[in-house]
């Protein structure tokens, strides 16, 4: 399984790069926190209203954060042309994508788990009752954001106006993830949480479709 061992090594590299500077994680956490606070001014954040708007608010913040956080994913390989080195070092270029998307999923999931309790306190929505289920939803959602986001980050890195372009390419594509994750989160934040199997299945489908597309077409994005 050369693919898996290559991916593991590259994932280690991605995580090391991030944990040396922690730039990406800190900025993303602060960014999401800012949006969560700003949202409180747009409606009356009482408990009932927060239950209705909260899940959508959270996922919209995650989506915006993803479209910013995924920017440097391929851009930082351009500075010293390290992408060519990466391509030469692995048999299957898919490993580069797998490592990057795994790292991005972990980063997203980490910020989400960190900010969920903060959201819960600020908006008076208890999350502990269904915490493991929420983490599962967040994992599936983050995977969806990362699979498409990593691919599109490789696309936007090769264009002009890339900082504006990535959100523009990514956000409409993520409509299904936004709907499914919001609905799944909403059904876990009510008084009697129910497991949103339907929406989790949908997210799984989304992840599988785009992972397959990435596996088929990703390598062409890394061509010189």
């Amino acid at each position, binding site marked *: 399984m050369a693919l898996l061992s290559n991916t593991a090594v590259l994932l280690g590299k991605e995580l090391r790069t991030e944990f040396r500077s922690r730039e990406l994680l800190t900025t993303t956490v602060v960014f999401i926190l800012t949006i969560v606070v700003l949202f409180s001014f747009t409606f009356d954040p009482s408990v009932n209203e927060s239950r209705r708007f909260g899940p959508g608010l959270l996922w919209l913040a995650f989506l915006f954060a993803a479209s910013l956080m995924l920017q440097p994913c391929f851009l930082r390989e351009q500075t010293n042309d390290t992408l060519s080195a990466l391509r030469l070092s692995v048999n299957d270029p898919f490993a580069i994508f797998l490592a990057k998307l795994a790292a991005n999923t972990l980063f997203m999931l980490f910020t989400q788990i960190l900010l969920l309790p903060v959201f819960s306190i600020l908006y008076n929505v208890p999350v502990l009752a269904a915490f493991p289920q929420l983490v599962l939803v967040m994992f599936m959602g983050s995977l969806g954001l990362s699979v498409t986001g990593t691919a599109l980050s490789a696309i936007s890195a090769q264009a002009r106006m890339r900082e504006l372009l990535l959100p523009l390419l990514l956000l*409409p594509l993520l409509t299904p993830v936004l709907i499914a994750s919001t609905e799944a989160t909403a059904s876990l934040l009510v008084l009697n949480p129910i497991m949103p199997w339907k929406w989790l299945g949908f997210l799984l489908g989304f992840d599988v479709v785009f992972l397959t597309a990435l596996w088929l077409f990703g390598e062409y994005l890394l061509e010189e």
Partner: protein
Amino acid sequence: MKKRILIAAVVVILMSLAAYAALFVAPTESKMGTIQRIFYLHAPSGMVALLSFFVGFVGNLAYVFTRKPKWDWLGVSAAEVGMAFCTVLILTGPIWAHPVWGIWWTWDARLTLTFVLWLLYTSYLLLRTLVEDPDRRALISAIYGIFAFLDVPLVYGSIRWWRTQHPQPVIMGGSGSGLEPTMAMVFWFWFLNLVILMIFLIHERYALEAMRGEVQSIEREAEAA
């Protein structure tokens, strides 16, 4: 040149016939009245837009695997023509909806899908303007086009599960649905006409793109010399 003018004339005549059929041949709908006649432009435009995006998707796939510029030209031509039909769909929808539903817009499954589709292909066309190198532009926009088209059923599925208000399909819908025979005839005549219009527009747009590609390669040769 003469051939193209002849074909354009045929398309214009066919579209005029279609307009006549929608306005005078088709019977007035019993509940909605005259406004329902916009249906003959509205519904087939949606079908033709999807068909055009599908042609673009085929062009994108073929480009990725063969790297022949002609497939890139087909991809962008079909996407632009699809956008035109998609815009007609989005504009005629509210004109029909306002007198009938009492609102201009509603976030129902098919309306939302159309809007997201419109946004996706706007991004696709925008992406093309932001990449200089023609080969690079062709390749990465083709891959984005593939991603965008794969997203269509997922967007539709997710919104469909979520909420829907649009009238259930009357064409090829379940039992109990269906059009009055004259209406159905006018509808399919429109659909056929719009498909012909689509092919004509894609063909013209393709010729333009091919010419552009040629000019660019001549320019590059001149610069290199």
